[in-house]
C-alpha cells in the first residue's frame, strides 16, 4: 500500500501547533477544540480530531441531553429485575427461571430521510448488534414510524422505502417483527421518525460487557470490511439540521448486508457460548473510534491499535476515514491469546473475516489518571496517542438554556370546547368511520404484511394487537410482551403529561395482553437542542418519564436521543417513543384484542373512568384539523390498578379478550376488536359523543363470558377499578344505542373504512 502522502503524525502535530484544522466542519465547537488541545497538550492529529469529533458529537456523547437523562438513574425505582442498567449497550432484565431479556430502541431518522431503504435497513442492523453485543440472541424487532401527511408526495417515496428497508433487513435476519406504530403528521414530512427496537434473550450467566481487561489480550475486528460508508455520518449527518444542501450528504448513508449480519449473529453467539471473548463491542456510529475508546476505557485504559491492519474494501481510505467509517456488520472483540486460534476457527466456520488489529496494554498510574492511553499507528508511525476516557466518557456536557415557548399558553387555551359536535346520529356515524380510517388509526397491514412475523415460531402476539408477545426459552411457557407508544400531539400540548401518557399507553398495552410491565426503554425524538423552546420540551418530557417510572416501579434501562429533527425553524412535535417490556408466566393466558367469534352473548365491559377529554384527540384532528387544549389527564395510580386487574384476570382465565383504549377512544377499540374477531357487538352508552371519542387514559374494554361475570366483578372491586357493562358480542355490525337514538355500522363498512386508507394512496399509480 502506498504511504499516505500527508500523514499527520503525533510527532508532526507537536511541531506544527499552528496548522489550521477543519474542526468546525466536523461539528467541533471552538471551546471543544480548545479543550482537546488542553487534554493533549498539543494540537490533535487529523486522526485524533476525527475521534474526538465523532465521540463528542451529539449522537455519541449526549452532550445536550445528559443533564436531563441523569434523572432516569437518580429517580430509578428499586427493581430486583434489573440485572444491567443504563450505560451498557442495552439494559438487561430478569424474567425468571434464570432467563434474562435485553431490549432497546434506537433512532435512524436522518439517514431514513436521505435514503429511506438503506437508512431504515441499517437502523434495524444497528439495534440488533447492540442486543447481540450484550450476549443475547436477538429474538424479535419492532418499529415505531412517523411520516409526513399520507397524501404528501414525498411520503410516497419515504414510507415505502423505509418499510422495504425494514422488511429486507429484518426478514433476512430471521427476526420476527412483532409490532410497533405508524403515525403521520405535517412536521414529519422532512423528518420521518424511524425508531427500531430489538429484544434479545439469554441466560443470566451469558451477559457480556463492553470491556477490555487483561494486558496482552488481542483486539480482533471481525465481520465486514471497512469502506467509505457513512463517513462523518455520526457527527455530521445525525446531528445537523437538514437544509437545501442535504443532497450533498447522500453518500453518507451506510449500506447494509443482512446476510452478513445473520452470519455475524450466529458466529458471535457461538463465540460467546464457547467462552472465547472477554470483551465485546459492536461498531455502530463512530465505528472503530467508538469501539476502541469504549473498550479501552472499560478495561485497563490501555490499548494499542495498528490501523493499517483494518481490512479495507477501499484501499485509498486514510486513517481518519477508517476511524470515522460506519461500515455495517462489524464487531470488535477482546480475546485472550490462548483462545485466538479457536476464535479464528469459529469465524472461518461462518465465513466471517477476522483480523487482529491490536492488543490491550498496561498503563502507568499517571496515564490512568489522565484517562488511560490509546495509541494507534499507521504503518509504524504514531497517528493517535490520547487518553480514551476523555473521548468516550468525559465529553462536553451542556446545560442548554430552556424556556417555555411563547405560544404554549395560547395553544393550551385553545381547547376543543369550541369545536362543533356532530349534529345528529348520522353525522356521529360518519365521524366514527372517518376516525376509523384516519391515517394514524387505520389498519397498518399494507406495512405489516411486509414483515415476517412468524419466523422462529415463538410469536404469540404481533401487529395489530396491543402488544407483541414472544415465548422465551425453548418450548417453555414464559413470555415477554412489548409495546411502544408515542403521541406527538399530546406531547406538543404538554410535554410532561404527554410523555407520561405515552408511557402509560405502552404500559397499558402490555397489561392488556395479560403481562406484568417490568422495564422501560425510550427513544426521544426532538427538534434542535439549541432552540430553548425545544430544550424546554425535552426537559419536561424527561422529567415526566422519570417521575412516572419512579411511581410505577419500572426502571428505564436504556434508550436513545435524536435531536435536530427539524426543517428550518420548524421542529417536529416532540415525540418521545416509550417502549415497555413485561413478562407473563404462561403465554397460554395471553389476551388478544379480537372479539372471540365463539363467544356470542359474552359481555363487553368498559374498565376505567371516561371524562370529556378531547385535547389532542384523533377526533379533533380528523374532523376539525384542530390541535389545542390539554392532553388527557394522566392518572398513574389508576393505570397501575388497571394493569394489576388485567394481569390477575388473565392469570385466572376470566377474560375472553381485552383491548386498551387510546387514540380514537372507545369507537376505535370496539371497531378494531369486532373486525379482528369477525363478529359485531351492540353497546349502549349515555353520552355517545364523549363515550365514543374521548381519549381518557387508564381504560380498556374486556370480554367476559356470563359465567365469569361475578368473579370478574369481584376482582374489579378488589383492585378498585370502575367497571361498566356496556353491551354484548354478536351479530355482524357495530351497533351503538343511547337514550335518544342510535346507529349501526356493518362489519363490511367498518372494514372498508379501516383498511382502504393506506392502499388507496400507496398503491395508486
Amino acid at each position, binding site marked *: 500500500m502506498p504511504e499516505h502522502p500527508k500523514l499527520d503524525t503525533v510527532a508532526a502535530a507537536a511541531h506544527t501547533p499552528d496548522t489550521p484544522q477543519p474542526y468546525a466542519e466536523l461539528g467541533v465547537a471552538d471551546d471543544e477544540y480548545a479543550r482537546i488541545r488542553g487534554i493533549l497538550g498539543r494540537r490533535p492529529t487529523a486522526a485524533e480530531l476525527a475521534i474526538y469529533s465523532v465521540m463528542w458529537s451529539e449522537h455519541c456523547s449526549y452532550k445536550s441531553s445528559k443533564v436531563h437523562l441523569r434523572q432516569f438513574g437518580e429517580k430509578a425505582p428499586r427493581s430486583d429485575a434489573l440485572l444491567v442498567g443504563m450505560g451498557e449497550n442495552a439494559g438487561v432484565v430478569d424474567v425468571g427461571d434464570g432467563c434474562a431479556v435485553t431490549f432497546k430502541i434506537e433512532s435512524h431518522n436522518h439517514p431514513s430521510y436521505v435514503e429511506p431503504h438503506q437508512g431504515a435497513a441499517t437502523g434495524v442492523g444497528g439495534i440488533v448488534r447492540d442486543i447481540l453485543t450484550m450476549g443475547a440472541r436477538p429474538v424479535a424487532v419492532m418499529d415505531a414510524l412517523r411520516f409526513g401527511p399520507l397524501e404528501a408526495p414525498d411520503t410516497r417515496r419515504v414510507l415505502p422505502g423505509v418499510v422495504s428497508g425494514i422488511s429486507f433487513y429484518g426478514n433476512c435476519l430471521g427476526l420476527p417483527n412483532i409490532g410497533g406504530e405508524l403515525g403521520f403528521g405535517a412536521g414529519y414530512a422532512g423528518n420521518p421518525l424511524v425508531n427500531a427496537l430489538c429484544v434479545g434473550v439469554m441466560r443470566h450467566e451469558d451477559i457480556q460487557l463492553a470491556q477490555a481487561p487483561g494486558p496482552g489480550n488481542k483486539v480482533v475486528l471481525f465481520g465486514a470490511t471497512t469502506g467509505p460508508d457513512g463517513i462523518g455520518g455520526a457527527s455530521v449527518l445525525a446531528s445537523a439540521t437538514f437544509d437545501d444542501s442535504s443532497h450533498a450528504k447522500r453518500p453518507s448513508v451506510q449500506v447494509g448486508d443482512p*446476510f452478513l449480519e445473520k452470519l455475524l449473529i450466529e458466529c458471535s453467539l457461538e463465540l460467546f457460548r464457547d467462552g472465547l471473548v472477554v470483551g465485546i463491542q459492536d461498531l455502530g456510529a463512530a465505528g472503530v473510534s467508538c469501539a476502541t475508546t469504549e473498550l479501552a476505557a472499560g478495561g485497563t485504559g490501555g490499548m494499542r491499535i495498528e490501523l493499517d491492519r483494518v481490512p479495507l474494501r477501499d484501499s485509498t481510505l486514510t486513517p481518519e476515514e477508517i476511524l470515522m467509517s460506519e461500515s455495517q456488520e462489524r464487531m470488535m472483540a477482546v480475546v485472550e491469546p490462548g483462545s485466538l486460534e479457536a476464535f479464528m476457527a469459529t469465524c472461518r466456520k461462518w465465513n466471517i473475516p477476522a483480523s487482529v488489529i491490536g492488543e490491550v496494554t498496561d498503563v502507568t498510574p499517571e496515564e490512568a489518571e489522565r484517562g488511560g492511553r490509546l495509541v494507534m499507528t499507521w504503518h509504524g508511525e504514531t497517528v493517535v496517542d490520547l487518553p480514551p476516557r476523555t473521548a468516550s466518557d468525559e465529553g462536553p456536557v451542556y446545560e442548554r438554556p430552556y424556556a417555555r415557548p411563547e405560544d404554549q399558553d395560547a395553544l393550551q387555551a385553545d381547547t376543543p370546547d369550541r369545536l362543533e359536535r356532530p349534529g345528529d346520529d348520522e353525522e356521529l356515524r360518519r365521524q366514527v368511520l372517518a376516525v376509523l380510517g384516519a391515517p394514524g388509526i387505520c389498519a397498518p397491514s399494507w406495512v405489516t404484511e411486509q414483515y415476517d412475523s412468524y*419466523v422462529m415460531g415463538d410469536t404469540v402476539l404481533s401487529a395489530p394487537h396491543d402488544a407483541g408477545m414472544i415465548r422465551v426459552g425453548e418450548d417453555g411457557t414464559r413470555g415477554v410482551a412489548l409495546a411502544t407508544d408515542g403521541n406527538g400531539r399530546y406531547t406538543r400540548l404538554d410535554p410532561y403529561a404527554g410523555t407520561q401518557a405515552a408511557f402509560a399507553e405502552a404500559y397499558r398495552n402490555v397489561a392488556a395482553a395479560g403481562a406484568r410491565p417490568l422495564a422501560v426503554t425510550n427513544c426521544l425524538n426532538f427538534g434542535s437542542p439549541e432552540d430553548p423552546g425545544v430544550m424546554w420540551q425535552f426537559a419536561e418530557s424527561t422529567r415526566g418519564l422519570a417521575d412516572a417510572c419512579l411511581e410505577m416501579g419500572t426502571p428505564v434501562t436504556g434508550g436513545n436521543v435524536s435531536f435536530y429533527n427539524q426543517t428550518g425553524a420548524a421542529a417536529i412535535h416532540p415525540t418521545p417513543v416509550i417502549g415497555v417490556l413485561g413478562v407473563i408466566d404462561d403465554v397460554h393466558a395471553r389476551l388478544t384484542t379480537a372479539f372471540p367469534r365463539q363467544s356470542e352473548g359474552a359481555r363487553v365491559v368498559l374498565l376505567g373512568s371516561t371524562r370529556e377529554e378531547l385535547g389532542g384527540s384523533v377526533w379533533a384532528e380528523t374532523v376539525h384539523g384542530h390541535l389545542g387544549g390539554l392532553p388527557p389527564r394522566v392518572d398513574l395510580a389508576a393505570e397501575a390498578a388497571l394493569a394489576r386487574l388485567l394481569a390477575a384476570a388473565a392469570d385466572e382465565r376470566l377474560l375472553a379478550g381485552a383491548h386498551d383504549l387510546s387514540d380514537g377512544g372507545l369507537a376505535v377499540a370496539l371497531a378494531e376488536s369486532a373486525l379482528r374477531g369477525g363478529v359485531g357487538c351492540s353497546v349502549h352508552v349515555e353520552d355517545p359523543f364523549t363515550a365514543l371519542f374521548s381519549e381518557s387514559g387508564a381504560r380498556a374494554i374486556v370480554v367476559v363470558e356470563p359465567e365469569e361475570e361475578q368473579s370478574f366483578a369481584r376482582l374489579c372491586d378488589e383492585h378498585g377499578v370502575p367497571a361498566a357493562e356496556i353491551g354484548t358480542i354478536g351479530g355482524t355490525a357495530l351497533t351503538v344505542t343511547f337514550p335518544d337514538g342510535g346507529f349501526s355500522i356493518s362489519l363490511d363498512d367498518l372494514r372498508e373504512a379501516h383498511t382502504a386508507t393506506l392502499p388507496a394512496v400507496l398503491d395508486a399509480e
Partner: protein
Amino acid sequence: MTARVGVVTFPGSLDDRDAARAVRLAGADPVPLWHDDPDLKGVDAVVLPGGFSYGDYLRCGAIARFAPVMNELVPAARSGTLPVLGICNGFQILCESHLLPGALTRNRSLRFVNREQAVRVESTATAWTNRYTEGEEIRIVLKSGEGNFVADDATLDELERSGRVVVRYVGEAPNGARRGIAGISNEHGNVVGLMPHPEHAVEELTGPSTHGLDFFTSLLAHLADTSPAAAAATG
C-alpha cells in the same frame, strides 16, 4: 425406531428451528444437517427449510444447489427413494436443482407478503400430503418475497394432467403464481416444494391453525408404508 428427519441448515436458513419443531411435534426425530457437510447421516427424509440460504443475492437457491449437502440428496431424491420437502427457499432450491420444474420469481406486487393464507390440497398422492383429503382447505402461513411460481404452459399442463399440483391458493394468488400454484411434486411424489409454510401452523399458540402438522404426519405414514422396520416401530 422413530423416523429420523434431516433438517438442512444453510448459513442463511431461518426456519430450520421451526421445521425441526414441526418434525418433533409430528413424532419424529429432527436431525440437523449442515450445508457444508455431504453426510446425510442416514436420515429417512429431508426438509429444506425457508430462509435465504447463501443470502440469495444472485437468485434464490441458485448457490445452495451446489452445496456439499446436496451431493447425495439430489440423486436420492430424483430416484424416488428419499422424501424431500422444500419449503419457501427450500422450494426455490428444489427448482434450481431441477428436482422440480418451473421457477419462483418476485411477487407481482414486488413486495414481501406475510399473512395467514388459505390453500387447497389438490393431491394427496405424495409422501407429504397423504393424511389430507383431496380438496381440503387449510390455513397456513405465507411469507415470501419471491413466491410467484412460473413455468411454461406445456409444463403447467403436464403438472396438472399428472396430478402433481399439490397445493393451490384459495382465491387470487397473493404473489401472482401461475394457475394459483402454491406447491408441486415430482413424478414419484417423494419430492414436494411448497411456497407457504406448514411448519408455522403446528401450534394453536403461534400459528393461524394446526393444519400444517399433517404434512409431517403424512411423512411418517408414508415411511411406515414403505419401510417394514418403521412400520413395526410406529405400530
